[in-house]
């Protein structure tokens, strides 16, 4: 059952890295600091992190025929989804406040 959390965690970490990368790729322009674009990227990737993580977990249950194992794993995947999204937002908030003056600082 731990695998559910591992998959969700790994997916979240990857998507978070993509968010950081994308934030850094959007350059400061004189009229347009790019804040809105970075924020959109941040939240879209947040949702994707959760959904893709859950999908990966769900796909691994398809070849499991034992129904109790299947439903238990899906339940854990759901919990992992919630935790992954919360962690994504929390870490994003903390990092954004620590590196206030950098590009990721504009997330929050």
């Amino acid at each position, binding site marked *: 059952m731990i695998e559910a959390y591992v998959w969700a965690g790994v997916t979240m970490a990857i998507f978070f890295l993509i968010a950081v990368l994308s934030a850094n790729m959007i350059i400061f322009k004189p009229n347009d600091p790019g804040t809105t674009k970075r924020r959109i990227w941040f939240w879209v990737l947040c949702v994707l992190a959760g959904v893709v993580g859950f999908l990966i977990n769900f796909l691994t249950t398809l070849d499991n*025929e*034992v*129904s*109790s*194992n299947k439903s*238990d794993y899906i339940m854990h995947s759901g919990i992992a989804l919630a935790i992954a999204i919360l962690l994504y937002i929390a870490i994003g908030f903390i990092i954004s406040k620590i590196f206030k003056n950098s590009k990721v600082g504009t997330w929050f």
Partner: protein
Amino acid sequence: MARTRNSTTRSRQNNRGRKKSSSLKWILLISLFVVLSLVIWGVVTMLNNNDYTFKRSDLDKYIEKTHNNNLLNNGISVYFDMSNGMNHAYSSVHSKETLKSVINKLAGNDKNDKVDFYSLANGRITSLELNHKDLFNYMIDSKNYAQQRAPIETTLDSIVKKKQPALLMTDFEEYHDNKIQLAAYAKKYFIDWLDMGYNITFYKWTFVEGKKNKYMFLAVFDDNMNSLNNRIKEAVRENSDIDTFVLGSRDFAYPTKTNYISSKKGGNYHNSKGNDIVTAVLEDGSSDSYFCYAKAMATAEGESELFTPLDNITGAFAEYYPIGVKWQDVIRNAKTMQKKGTPKADVFHHLLSNLYINFNKQDGYNIKKIEIRTFDMQETMRTIANSKATISFKEIEKINKPEIDEIFTANMEDCRKLVNWKHIFVDFHNNFNGTFIDEEKSSNLIRANIVISEVDENIEKAKKFFYWEGNPSLFNSVTETLQASTSKPIGRILYTYYVKTLAN
């Protein structure tokens, strides 16, 4: 916007100071947390290492140590009743041929196959030193039946004491002071023989003495290996006038077999693809997977897939099922596979099934009911794992095996395809919801014995076979033997399922 130098420097200095002390605090806090977690983890791991983890090899040891065979001594004794009442016993063509057949089967072939012949007459048991050709002529010569008083009771006593396979050919008419003994003189010896765990098979034909119809008996005293009994069975096979009555002991080897889908899979649920998706029993052939201790072999009669009677070579009537999910999940999965709309081949019927037993190979009892008795084997397994190889059977038996109530039930039903055979299956008890009072015990090894719980004596059958006018002694002996508490197979273990869940 421009700032004055002083305020910037001051605030930066102040900020720097504050940051330094607060980060120090954080470092201390985090390191304390890390150390604490390491300590807790270390303690927990140490505690867990003291806990016993079950391995199937422990169960192998247990079965090897507690499996006992109960066989007779070597050697065969054959007793011929030569009293004058037997004069016409071999008069018909059929009976002569049967006698010849029996003697041929018993003819001493080699030194390891020692058969001793005795004649019973004049109140004495006398050794007969004849080869089998002379023996047959001796038996059909009416001159040799001049004497009286075959000491049947003494012979029975000798048979019980010698503890060897024995054949007694007689009409069971015992004389006492020149009068026919009508009391059930044989019962003590029949009861003792059965109490030791051995069987008596009676072969009978009718002959006429003067105006009376009498019975001629071949009483075979043997154990479950049937080394002597199989020979006699072969010898009488051609004779269709012969009736049989098997008086089996508590330990009688009821023919037992299973009808599983493969040699690596047991009687647990399998769907139409052959997968166990209810109990998820580990069936991959690894060292901790499902194992059947009973070995199937063809019997003397050529029936295949029967488990041979209990003996050291072929194994115990037991199986080991390692379940892959928790008990609550087994119940959940079973309910899922019973929902409406499940294809017929996938419907869940029983927790364990496809075990077949034939109770009709013995004639003394009608087995009416079976039950299942469940015991916790954790203590036993832990002791065996920690003990040396020299631990004795007695020490193992002393270990506490607490009985678990209301977890399984067992039933039997008639078999449509196999007449005479009963199909035995195991289900959950209605009051079992998957949880144990002590949650730690839920992953212990459980021993579930299928035992006989209710029997009826086949008195009517015995009467038809043994009773004849003027001398009810043999019938009474058999009846009293059947009614003796040491003969009844109540509590006899027929098969054992060892079950354990691997999920914790």
